[in-house]
């Protein structure tokens, strides 16, 4: 039955329209949850607000469970869902740069667009910086980045099969880890906020 677009169950136009409305919902909820506030995202690093971590961890697990169950009951063909090949070295470097971007700029790529749409000047500058970065990367790709980009190739890796355990067990373990992380960050948050009064 799914995914709808790769299996040609819907056309490209319908796909774009559905994407448009999901995008509206996503942007609305990011703004409504206060994620376009730079202090919220930076709070994860300073230890006074872990909502971002909780939300994105829960979202990832919800999506994981949903995809697993839909696939198990035959409503979704996982093989048709695109996921990129893994190159662990550039991923590690990219993750490091992204974390720096989070803590310095206070935005992640999605929230920066939402914040720019609300008219936040810092977000507009952040998006501008991202565009310049993308341009710089593409211009200098062959000269500088190509060897790094292709290093550490692991092919299409599913983390559960890479670890040699089943998908269901992996999801369950991930949820346990998430729950433990939620408890831990709640304690950290209490301690940090009791020392200093952070205002978002």
């Amino acid at each position, binding site marked *: 039955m799914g995914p709808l677009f790769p299996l040609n169950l819907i056309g490209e136009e319908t796909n774009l329209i559905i994407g448009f409305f999901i995008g509206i919902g996503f942007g609305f909820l990011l703004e409504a949850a206060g994620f376009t506030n730079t202090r919220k995202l930076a709070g994860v690093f300073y230890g006074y607000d872990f909502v971002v971590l*909780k939300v994105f961890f*829960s979202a990832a*697990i*919800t999506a*994981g*469970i949903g995809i*697993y*169950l839909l*696939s*198990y009951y*035959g409503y*979704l*063909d*996982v*093989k048709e869902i695109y996921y990129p090949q893994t190159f662990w070295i550039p991923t590690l470097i990219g993750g490091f740069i992204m974390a720096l971007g989070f803590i310095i700029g206070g935005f992640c790529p999605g929230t920066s667009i939402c914040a720019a749409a609300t008219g936040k000047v810092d977000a507009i500058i952040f998006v501008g910086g991202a565009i310049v970065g993308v341009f710089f990367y593409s211009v200098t790709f062959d000269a500088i980045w190509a060897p790094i980009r292709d290093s550490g190739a692991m092919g299409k890796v599913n983390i559960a099969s890479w670890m040699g355990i*089943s*998908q*269901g*067990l992996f*999801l*369950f373990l*991930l*949820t*346990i880890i*998430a*729950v433990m992380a*939620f*408890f831990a960050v*709640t304690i950290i948050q209490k301690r940090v906020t009791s020392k200093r009064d952070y205002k978002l």
Partner: protein
Amino acid sequence: MKRNEIIIVAILLIGSFWAFTLDDNNRYRNETYTPCELVDLTAKADKFITPDELAKRIMNNDPSIVLIDLREKKEFEIYSLPNAINIPIKNLLDDQFNPVLNQNTYTNVFFSNSSDLASKAWMICTRMGFKNNYILQGGLNLWAENILRPTAPKQTAVNAEFVKYNFRRAASAYFVGSSVVDENNGNNGNNENKTAAPAPASKKKKDAAGGGCN
């Protein structure tokens, strides 16, 4: 943690535990049976239909039977069973044939020259969870041997063999027409057709009886 956070965590735990209990790496989308179940099914299932049984059902105009020729179109056009449809095995899972295969009303009989293509098709269709799949035992080769060119049993054979032989001669006349060659004496079988065609005759009688007082 706040109350709604605890609720969300509980839901996630239940969901992931559900996924964990379902876990079965051997089960893939669209494939109803695991390899182990399929082996059991292959060993148990009465998946063959003999040429005699098929001939009987075709001669009785059984509407539930669908004959599927798995050979290439060229071979299909040269000769096939009456009213057979051609699904070359490489196109078996094409969308256009899905309504034919994925159903629960008709009896699908796969055949090719021998029974190996049909066995493959049976395996694929059964694994996909399609119902009512059968293989024509021995394929068209055995069909030709048993039905189109039946050989007479030895004089010492049991009566059942003669009954079967007579039926096959009748079936031969039905499928090949009057030009059937009697292999015993090399003559055209016309003169023996009367005695050799009990099956259609008895069917007629039955029909008349079934029709009531008319």
